[in-house]
Each structure stands twice: as C-alpha cells, then as structure tokens.
C-alpha cells in the first residue's frame, strides 16, 4: 500500500516537472509584457515605467566595471524603493555565467553591462537571452552605430601608454618599434584568455593587417616577410616575443606605467586616463600620432536579459545610466551621446585615430586569433 502511494507520487513528480517547465513564459510573451524589442511603444510613458519599476522593487545588474557599485548606490538614492543588486564581474566570466544561468532556467540578471559584442552575439543572442533596449527618447542623440546591434552605455579605448615623467617626447611612434630588441621585456599587456579588451586588441590588429604591412615598410624601409598568414598575425607573434604578461587587470597595467622608472610601455585603457590629472592615481600618456593608429576603441554595451523578473526597473536603470547616472558615475568614459561633451582630460574619441573592431570579423576570426595567441605566448 505504502509502496503504491510512493509510486504514484514519483510518477506525479516526473510528469509535473515538464509541465512546470512548459508553463514558463516564452521570450516573445515576456517581450510583449515588458514592452521591449518589437513591442517597444513609439512613445514611452516614463511615469508608468517608474511606477511599474517600483512595483517590481528591485533590479539585478551584472557589470564588468566596479563603477557599477557606486552607480547602484546613486540609483537607489534617486529612486528610493527600488533596490539595485549590482555585481561587478569580469567580462568573460560574466558572459559565460549569464549563458549558463539562462540555460539552467535561472533568470537572475535583469541587465548586463559589458563589452564583447561578438560573444554576446554568439552565446547570448543566439539563445534569445538578451534584447537590445534603447529608450525612445535617446534615439535621436545616439547615432545608429552606437545603438545597433547593441546599445553603447559608454565608450572605452585601449592603446600603448608611456610615463610622461620620464619622456618629454613619446618613446615610440610606430607599433613595429615595440618588436625591436631594445623593447624586450619592457612591454606589458594582459592575456586575451582572461581579458576582454586584450582579445579585442588582438582582433583589431589582425583586422588591420594591411595597415600593419604599410607601417612596417614605413618603419623598416622594406616590405615585410611573412612567416604567418598576414602582417597582423606577424605583429602579434613578434610582439609576444618581446612582451610580458602583466597581472592586475586594467588598473594593474596603468599602475605599471605609473610606477615604471624607465623605458617602458603597457596597453592601458582610456577610461583610466581621467586619473592622470594633478593629484590623480596614475601617470601615463598616449602618443596621438602613433603609426598606424593610437589603438582600439569600443563600446560597453548595455542589454536587458529576457525572461528576467524586473524589466521595468531594468529600463529605468538603463535610461538613468545614459543620463543622470552617466554624469554622476561614468563620465570618466566618453558617452555615445552626441549632445554630451567629454570631461577633460578626455577628448572626443571620434577626433582621435582609434580603430574599431568589425563585429562580423570578430565573430569569424576571434577564435582563430585566440588560438594563434595561445600558440605563441
């Protein structure tokens, strides 16, 4: 008798499981309810969104910058009653974990704030885990390239930096100089296996292989002889013979140049440049006339996670992070908005010579470039 009851219970459980799963909302139904994607209204009623956000009472954001912790506090002050749970997670970790959470049916994060569009495309968008959300009233002030396919919440860049205390003139003007023997052991960068910006850097180098071939000739006075598929790969290979893998992520690189006493360079992100002003934490400078380019610029994307529990609070947070929140907490990075002037010492990215990475190229070649790096590092 008892045995039969147990069997019935077990059978019930076994059948109830798939049923319970089937009952969860589809992505489309969620988008409809959240009024995003194809269901985003032409005019958004922000009072209503705020009201709904208050009902939700909470928003969970994963971001690749510790600035998010400050920003979360700022948002809670501005919108009391809406709690922000902010997590500062490294980019590669975050994308991996969001995808796994999503596949496990756990929809923790409402918003993600991270670079790496090619990984977003391949691992998140492919399973409909994210949706691009641009507040309607921001459409006019953010150029299309900065809001499609994914919204840029802020911009960033990375390039070779030197310590101006020890060099009146930049100690290098052509990227190929860094492959010469005198720079051996004096170059620091991170590994693309753990740093998103370094991976983007490597992709940018390969994408601009032709420019590297031309720059080679300008520097050495003769055409490059290749031992690898193109001049971009050739550059990476020779760079890796000279360089050291640094530790401590982007602040570690900036600190390295700041503390250096000699002829020394590192790949440093532009978002720390604001700290080079009087009394700031770092001392570094870029060569604006670097041949063939200063480095690479990219955007930090902000996207909503589908099926998440707090879509309205997520919308409110996104809009705030492009506006008031940006000014209060992120103004160290250039804004994608045309109506926002950079705060000195920052300059408009568009007026400097930065490369950008082509999303399709990154998707096609990223994996091979990472393999290449791993083979030579």
């Amino acid at each position, binding site marked *: 008798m008892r045995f039969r009851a147990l069997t019935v219970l077990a059978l019930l459980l076994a059948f109830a499981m798939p049923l319970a799963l089937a009952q969860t909302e589809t992505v489309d139904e969620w988008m409809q309810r959240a009024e995003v994607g194809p269901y985003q209204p032409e005019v958004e009623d922000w009072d209503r969104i705020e009201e709904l956000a208050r009902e939700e009472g909470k928003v969970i954001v994963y971001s690749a910058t510790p600035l998010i*912790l400050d920003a979360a506090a700022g948002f809670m002050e501005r919108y009391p009653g809406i709690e922000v749970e902010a997590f500062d997670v490294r980019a590669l970790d975050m994308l991996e974990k969001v995808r796994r*959470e999503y*596949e496990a049916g756990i929809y*923790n994060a409402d918003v993600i704030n991270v670079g790496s569009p090619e990984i977003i495309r391949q691992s998140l968008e492919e399973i409909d885990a994210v949706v691009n959300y641009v507040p309607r009233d921001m459409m006019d002030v953010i150029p299309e390239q900065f809001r499609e396919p994914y919204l840029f919440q802020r911009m960033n860049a990375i390039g070779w930096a030197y310590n101006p205390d020890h060099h009146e003139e930049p100690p290098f003007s052509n990227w190929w100089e860094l492959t010469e023997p005198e720079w051996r052991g004096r170059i620091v960068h991170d590994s693309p296996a753990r740093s998103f910006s370094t991976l983007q850097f490597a992709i940018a180098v390969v994408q601009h292989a032709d420019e590297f071939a031309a720059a080679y000739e300008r520097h050495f006075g003769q055409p490059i002889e290749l031992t690898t598929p193109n001049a971009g790969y050739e550059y990476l290979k020779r760079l890796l013979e000279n360089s050291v893998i640094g530790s*401590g992520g982007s*602040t570690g690189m900036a600190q390295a140049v700041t503390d250096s006493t000699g002829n020394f360079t590192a790949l440093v992100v532009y978002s720390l440049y604001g700290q080079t002003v009087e009394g700031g934490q770092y001392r570094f400078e870029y060569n604006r006339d670097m041949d063939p380019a200063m480095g690479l610029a990219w955007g930090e994307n902000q996207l909503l996670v589908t099926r998440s529990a707090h879509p309205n609070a997520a919308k409110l947070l996104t809009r705030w992070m492009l506006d008031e929140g940006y000014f209060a907490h992120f103004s160290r990075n250039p804004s994608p908005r045309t109506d926002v002037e950079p705060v000195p010492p920052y300059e408009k990215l568009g007026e400097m010579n930065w490369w950008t990475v082509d999303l399709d190229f990154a998707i096609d070649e990223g994996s091979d470039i990472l393999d290449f790096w791993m083979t030579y590092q």
Partner: protein
Amino acid sequence: MTRFVNRLGHILRTPHLVIGVSLIVALAYLVLMPFWEVIATSFTAQRADVRRIEGAEVGSFTLYYWERMLASPLTQRGFLQPLYNTLTISFLYTFLAMAIGVGLAWLTARTDMAFRRAIPDLILVPYVIPSWGIALAWITLFRSDTMPGHPAGVLQAFTGITVPTWVVFGPFPIIIVLAINYFAFTYLLAASAFASLDASLDDAARLHGASRWRILRRITLPITIPALGSAFILTFSQGLGTFGVPAFLGMPDRYFVLATSLFFNINTGRMGDAFVLALFIIGLASVTIWINTLVLGRRRQFTTISGKDTRPALTPLGRWRVPIGLMTIGFLLLVAVVPLIVLVMQTLTWRVGNFSPEHWTLHFWIGREMLGAQFQDRLSGIFFNPEIMRAAWNSIKLGVIVGLVVAFVGQLAGYVVSRGRGGWIARALDQLTFLPFVIPSVVFGAIYLSMFAQPRGPIPALYGTFALLVVVSVVKRLPFAARSGTSSMMQVSGELEEAAVMHKAGFFRIMRRILFPLTRNGIFVGFIFGFVNTVKDLALVILLVTPLTNVLPALTYSYTERGFRQYSDAVTVLIVAIVLIGTFLARRISRTDFSRGF
C-alpha cells in the same frame, strides 16, 4: 524469482543494506554519471565551435577536440607543455613536502626532541591558510618594481633587496608554496607509519648490538617505505589537479599546468578542449592511485609482523635536543605566521607597493566610503561591502552545511562498510566514496558545470543555485569523511546493536541513541574537515559560483585578477579567520581532540 524476492526482502529488512544501496545509487549518479559526461562532451561538437568543424551540427560526434589537443599547432603550448609542467611540479613539490613532513614525523615520533608534543597541534596551523593565500603572500613578499608591471613588495620596501623574477613567478615558487601547503599532509601519513612501527623490533636489534644507522637502514626504512611510498603517491596525485597556486604564480610567467589550461579553456568557452584535458588529469591521477594500491598491497605483508607493543626507545639528540626543537617550532610559525603578516600589511597600504607607515589606512577593512568614482580600485571596506559580506555569509553557510552533511553521510557510509564487511555493497560503496579523491577539484567543478547546466529528467538544473555548491562540496569531501566514519564505526561492536534490537529499538533509535553518541568524535572530525576544506576551497567552486552564490575564495580570485590586491588579501585573511573561529567553536562544542582523529 522467489529467490530474488527473498533476497530483496532480506535487503529491505537490513538497515545497513538499504542505506548502502541508496548511497550507491546516489553516488553513481553524482560520481559516475559526471565521468561519462566528460567523455561524451569531449567527442561532441559544441555550439561555439560548430562553424569551425566541417559538416558538424550542435551535438554531433566529432574528433575535433582530441585532434586539436593531440595533433595540431596548439598541441605544444595547449597540451604537452602544461602536461610536462604539471608532472615536473608534482614530482618536485612532493619530494620537498616529503622531506619536510617525514623529517618532522621522525623527529616527533622517534627522537627526544624538545617541544615535540606541541608539533601535532602546531603543524595544523599552516593548514588553515589556503594554499593560494600563501601564493598571494609570496608575491607580496618578494615582488619588486624591477619586474615590469609590478610594484615593490615587502622585502624590497623594508630592505631594498630585490630577487630575480623566477623567484616570484613560475615553477620555483609554485613548488615551494605547494610543499608548504602539503607537508602537514605528508607528516600525518608518515607519523602514522612511524607510530605503527613495532618498537620491539628495534629493541631486539639493539640487543644484538646493531647500530642506530643499521636499525634505521635495515628495520625502520624497510618497514615504513611502503607507507612512505604511499604518502608520496597520494601527495603527488593531489598536485596533478592543483589550480589556485599555479593560477596566481604561473600565469604572469606564461607558465601553465593542465588545471590552469583547463580553466582558461572553459573561461573562453572551449568546453571540448577543456574536457580532453580533464580526462588526462583524471587518467594521470587514476594511474597514480592504482600504483598506490599496488604499494599498499605489499605493505600488508609487513603489518602481519607484530608483537607486544612497547614504547619505542627514542633516539637521543643530545645537545641538539633544544636547538632542533626551537628550529622546528620556528619553522612552523614562520610558514604559518609570516604569510598572514604579509597579507595584513598589504591590506593596510593605501597604494599597492607603498608600505611607509604614513600611508597606512584601515579603509580596506572598515572604510564606508566608496571611492570608485575617483579610484577604480577603492570600494568600501570589506565589512561594509555588500558583495563581500554576501560572499562571506555564503562561505560560512556552505562550510557549515557541507561539514554537517559530510560528517553524517560519512558515518552512514562507514556504518555500511563496517557492518557489511566483505559484501559487494560494502565494497562498492567503499570504492565509490573514494573515487572523488582521484578527480581533482577543478575538474570536478568543470564536470558539474556541464552535468547540472540543464534539467535532466526529474532532476532540475542546479547551475546558479546554492544547492549545487553543497552537492559538489559534499561529494568531493566524502572520501575523507567516509574513511573517518568507517574507522570510528569499526570500533563500535555489533553486540550493542544486537542488544538494542532485542529491546525492540528501531533503526533510527539505535542510530540516535547508540551509534552516533559513540562515534561523536569521528563525526566532529568529519565536520571540521568538511568545514575547513570547504571554506578555503577555490578550485572546486570557481567555475560553479554565480554572482548571487559567490563565495569568498572565488571573490579573492577575481579581485587578484583585477589588481584589487588589498581586497584579495583582506578577504584571504577573513577566510583564515572564519576557518579558525569555526574550528575553535566546533572544538569547544564537541571537546574533540583534533589531532587524534586520524
């Protein structure tokens, strides 16, 4: 058919068989299934790679990953080099740990060294510091600003002495730090070997005029060598999958071992490559354990030589008695206290590398202000940082739950193994509970990542839940707990149970009123070990935590990676504090003699 039904009825009426079968079923799912999962994944086209594999769809069979790892331009750097590094490090650190551990064991068990009674307690002190914590301290102590990309360390700041880079990063420090972490392990194994040595053999030899050297060479060593060999192999096997230390000390030198390669493969979405490496690590570990059973098999012949136990005559150290004692104590304090001091010092510096007292600050401990807008790496102090406090709470919760579960499951497994001695259920359970010992932590994490990523039949996806951390930690800690459970259950005679059964006591009543009270010491030792190892374990959970279920060791790792060194060090010190307080409380509550649990 009737025979089968009868047997089934017999099993159902015998508590230890019911428990045994349930444990076997559960462990088969939690240990054997994952193993199959790794093999299958390494032959299956993953979503991220489909575009690169000709004619493949997601989930189709492929040799792509095996080919990449074993026969492609990537093989040298992606597989062979890490394999070579793993073996080199494991051999060398094991030699060093054995030298220290066996030396200490001999000094405490067989000589009249001063203070030797304090050693068994003291030796456990370095053990509470996680191995990667010692690695962080090592970096902070020895780095210097002559190394590109690094600020001054403690040594340079106070003495001006700088050491070459190979002292700070690469194989050398990895070997030293692992040896520091594992010599307590080799000590415990060696000490039991020396303790079991029958002193009457010594006496007999001495009576026949054998010299001390001759006794050592002809009696002590031959008898203890199988046990020492076994200690060597067990220590060696633990090095094969070690992750934290080579991650912190190897990466900056581009020095990879199999475990760190595996981790970075998973981090960059290369599950296929990662699982090929995982299989190699498991394979290597299995071979070493197999060799171990061969060695131990030989030992049995020796242990049959036995006689009346007498107190062994201790080797007199003469006038070196006190100096050697002091040096030993000094060494143990050095490896336990210096790392902590170095870590604490760094948490007090406002700027990494600047140790002058006028720049000292308590900001990283109790600062309420978040200075992120000015300085990216100045969050609020760890006690006011919600992310860190959440992780601290998670760590404590995880440690306590895992400690309790593993202690009781360990006792239950021990009960089955001791009562069912000789039966297939006992043997199978014994083997299954030992299996997680062979699978290195980081591999275990990787396996569970894939195993519980999606719902499977009635078992829901556990990824992203706290339960997953509990399950993986319990299974990983089971080998020790089950052995401890078996040895304590063996000591309780079956007659007590029989007497209780006569008085019509039910099974649960017997457990509650007789077995658990009598094996209390074993339970608490199981708890403490489960707790300590869970709280400080990085490799097992690093792949499984999510922002909401984060624990302290994983947080340290991410702070270190980002250069927030004061935070990573403060969190490490916090972990040590939690371990010490937890151990202290558990001992207070149970009045357990920690060192006697082995």
